């Protein structure tokens, strides 16, 4: 296995870490952080799997997709943060109303 696949597995690990944090934490800001980490994991997988042919130059199409993805992620994060602040101004809470799981 060349080192490129190591980065693809790192992407898998980051995605799972982010998913765990997204489910477990209740504070909305932490959920936004978790979603960003999941996004970074997906981008790593895309670019790593695009450059896995040893000796050839990497495929530029996943690079372009990931650049687009980074910009979309920042605009979604900005909108999510504005929603979080608005909700806190209206209700005073930074967590969604809990449904009892037990």
């Amino acid at each position: 296995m060349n080192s490129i696949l190591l980065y693809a597995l790192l992407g898998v690990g980051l995605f799972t870490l982010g998913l765990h944090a997204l489910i477990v934490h209740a504070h909305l800001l932490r959920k936004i952080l978790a979603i960003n980490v999941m996004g970074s994991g997906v981008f790593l997988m895309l670019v790593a799997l695009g450059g896995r042919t040893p000796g050839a130059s990497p495929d530029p199409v996943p690079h372009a997709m990931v650049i687009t993805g980074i910009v979309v992620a920042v605009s979604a994060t900005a909108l999510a943060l504005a929603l979080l602040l608005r909700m806190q101004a209206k209700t005073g809470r930074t967590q969604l109303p809990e449904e009892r799981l037990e």
Partner: protein
Amino acid sequence: MSAVEHSQPSLLFRRVLLLPLLAFAGGLAYAVLSLPEQATGLSDQVAANMETSGVSNPVTAVLLNFRGYDTLLEMAVLLVALLGVWSLGSAVVHRRVDPEPVLSILVGGLVPMMIMMAGYLLWVGAAAPGGAFQAGSVLAASGILLLLSGRHLPVRLLGRPLRLVLVLGLGAFVAVGVALLSASGMFLQYPPGLAGAFILLIEAAATLSIGVTLTALFLGGRPDPDA
């Protein structure tokens, strides 16, 4: 940690969650490792068409020429996100704090350099790593530094001129596309010799637009000219 997050799900739930998550990660890892070793993807087709694309950086060629429509839609996504943030309320005017002197001096030296760097990144994006998004984000960083050091735009620029610059990137893209549609019959079909010039034109408009949009996203609300 439990004192801070009092509404975390119970310990049992978190223990039970670990097993399906590990299985999910294992399945993904297996899928990644079982992909074929050699896969060039689309790089051969990109390399074959690079001469007609008008630039020599393959990523810029893909972003602005081969998949130009995706980039147009991405500019629209930026604009829609800004509209969403603006629709939620006006920008909070921070408590008046005298800007720190170190920050003011630093900003005075850094911002002109960052504007020059943005121009360089825009220009060099045709041949080396760079491009509209990288240049636009450096512009946005300089805008955020200006905001943080207490300088705001004069009020008369906050209405129509601001909105004009925000729409400039997407507007230039759509205008070029429609003009080329009437000229050669296909949306965003660059004429063979002029592809590089069109790409630079669109990228310049996009850089300005992206910089101002990202700075406005940092502001967090509708800039209120009456405040």
